[in-house]
């Protein structure tokens, strides 16, 4: 099934995330990742949802049925900047530590914590680059991992300026 990246602007009201997630679930679509946070407008939140669906048009139409959903777009085939962050705690005894740190240099990943036998590494990049990095470090032993899920923004002047859709930032 095709994976689609959907960007949605929603009114920042209690329960809105629950509505979005509930709708996607009950219509039978599978969420691969979901990232949510503030947009440039105080009253508007912005979501990036990666969803598996044969019929993504129905997903967007159904999302529009939610009163608090302001704008939904499938940006899968648009030119976008896509980013994801992974924070990984690696098994890193002294013997392999230098090897791992040099690997981080290649991927522009940051070592953010050094323990006696562990390293915590912060890796930010395109989802595929993050995936590559994780492949490379996996043999050392991943003790913990947390990924943020994808966030996406359309390049150039076209996009999702929240201010265009609301009259006043109430």
């Amino acid at each position, binding site marked *: 099934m095709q994976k689609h990246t959907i960007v949605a*602007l*929603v*009114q920042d009201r*209690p*329960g809105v995330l*629950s*509505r979005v997630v*509930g*709708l996607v679930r*009950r219509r039978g679509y599978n969420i691969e990742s979901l990232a949510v946070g503030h947009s440039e407008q105080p009253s508007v939140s912005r979501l990036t949802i990666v969803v598996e669906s044969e019929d993504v*048009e*129905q997903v967007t*139409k*159904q999302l*529009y*049925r*939610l*009163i*608090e*959903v*302001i*704008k939904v777009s499938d940006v899968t085939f648009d030119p976008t900047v896509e980013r994801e962050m992974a924070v990984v705690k690696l098994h890193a005894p002294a013997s392999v530590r230098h090897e791992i740190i040099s690997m981080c240099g290649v991927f522009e990943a940051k070592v953010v914590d050094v323990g006696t036998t562990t390293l915590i590494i912060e890796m930010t990049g395109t989802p595929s680059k993050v995936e590559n990095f994780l492949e490379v470090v996996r043999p050392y032993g991943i003790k913990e991992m947390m990924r943020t899920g994808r966030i996406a923004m359309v390049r150039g002047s076209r996009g999702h300026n929240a201010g265009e*859709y*609301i*009259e*006043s930032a*109430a």
Partner: protein
Amino acid sequence: MSETRTGAQIMCEALIRENVEVMFGIPGGAIMPFYHAMWEYREKLRHVLCRHEQGAGHAAEGYARSTGRIGVCIGTSGPGVTNLVTPIADAMMDSTPLLAICGQVGSLVLGKDAFQETDITGITMPITKHNYLVKRAEELPYVFKEAIHIATTGRPGPVLIDITKDAMQKSIVPNWDVKLNLPGYKPNYHGNRKQIREALRMLAHAKKPLIIVGNGIIQAGASDELRAFAERLGIPVLTTLHGIGALPESHPLNIGMPGMHGWVHANRAIQDCDVLFNIGARFDDRVTGKASTFAPNAKVIHVDIDPSEIGKNVKVAVPIVGDARNVLKALLEDMPAQEELAALHSNASDWMEHIRDMQDQHQGKQQYVNRAKTENMALPPHDVYAGISEMLNLHGNYHVVTDVGQHQMWAAQLLDYNHGPRTLITSGGAATMGFAVPAALGVAVANPDSIIWAICGDGGFQMTNQEMATIMQEGITNIKVAVINNGYLGMVRQWQELFENKRYSGTPLSGPDFVKLAEAYGWKGIRVERSEDVRAAIEEANNTNGPVLIDFRVEREVNVFPMVPQNKSIGEMLTTEADM
């Protein structure tokens, strides 16, 4: 207007400001402040005390469906509001404007499993158009305004407001100067003109065009425009269960109901047509049968106010998002000149003739009514409907409210609806048994001059007949209940007979003596066991100035035909048991 009000008083005033006149409900602990306040406003805000919240919800639905105005129901926290869940789901499926007002425990104990606490906003999230939890009295003027706006505009639907007890009790100076802030909610009422012209071009050039109409025509009040448009192009019209009444059944272009229990000629017309123009129906699976085989030769034009309905079940060539009435008006405005149409449409009469031929071949209404199987029966259900139909069309000012099951399909098939939209009130999408008696209560409250026939099976009737007490207490005289009593959950039994080798598992049903039950409630009760007594009983019910129940003891194992078996093409209909 800068006087202090309690939250509960604000709720009453907000409803009055939105022209609400009637509410159906039951009090309880958390909602008590609202009941305390509504006493002061009782001249303007009538409260109908129901016997069960499900009854209150369906009554509000009946009120809304028969008028187009918002129906309001009330329940207290916990079981009070969970009892409202069924009518809310029903209103969601049938796009009924409904406002459910719920009491919630105090905000200080919210989330602590307090007495009668239930997360009703969580429970109803998937079955409401929108819902609210209000914890501060200050929010009430805005929330009520927005809630009623959402429930009644665009594609109507149920909205629930859950209000904590302390928000109702708190005294504040309300600010009524509120402006709606709904950047994401802007229903599109006017269809795209280019698409409308394309639709018109396709219809004018079609050889076998067909119109199918649903609830959208009724909700938009577009019956006149529909009639004018169909007549101008001479296109036959199908009315779905919720489209019944959009065009009188006596109209020469009305070819009846399609779908699982629609007419053979109606379904064949869909399979044969080359352009199918759907206005405000949602291609429900009970209409399409197996969707992949539906209307195989047709280009589909679909008008709906809800974009998500277009292309959901059936592939659409020309989508038009808009209000049915506005779109039909635009179509009429852009109509080519009569001469031009005549040139294009020289074969319109052939197509209509073809459909009527199919109708004659595959039997019309009357043949189904009088078919051989029912000849030796003391009381075939069809005879009851013949009597009711005759009386309704004599009387003119009527509403039919049905429950769900065999009797409902017969009510759709066998009664002739010739007196306008909103005359058949039935639970379609959710198909909620127990709908009829309480919904009839709501219809009667809204339409005191109409005569309301609630047609029920003995199964559904026993689910909500406690509202007979409400009807009595309210002094309502214009409700007549016809129980089509066959001692079975009949539609399930029919499927068991046809598809499950007559294993009548869980379907034989006993009941009390319904005549005595009616009398116990203070109603008149009549029993009819023979066809020759049908008309006299109906006349007696009509002439009685008070609620009447007729217990029609019909033949027990009669089936609804024609029928499309589930997941079969609508081209493959069964017309009798012999077709199995």
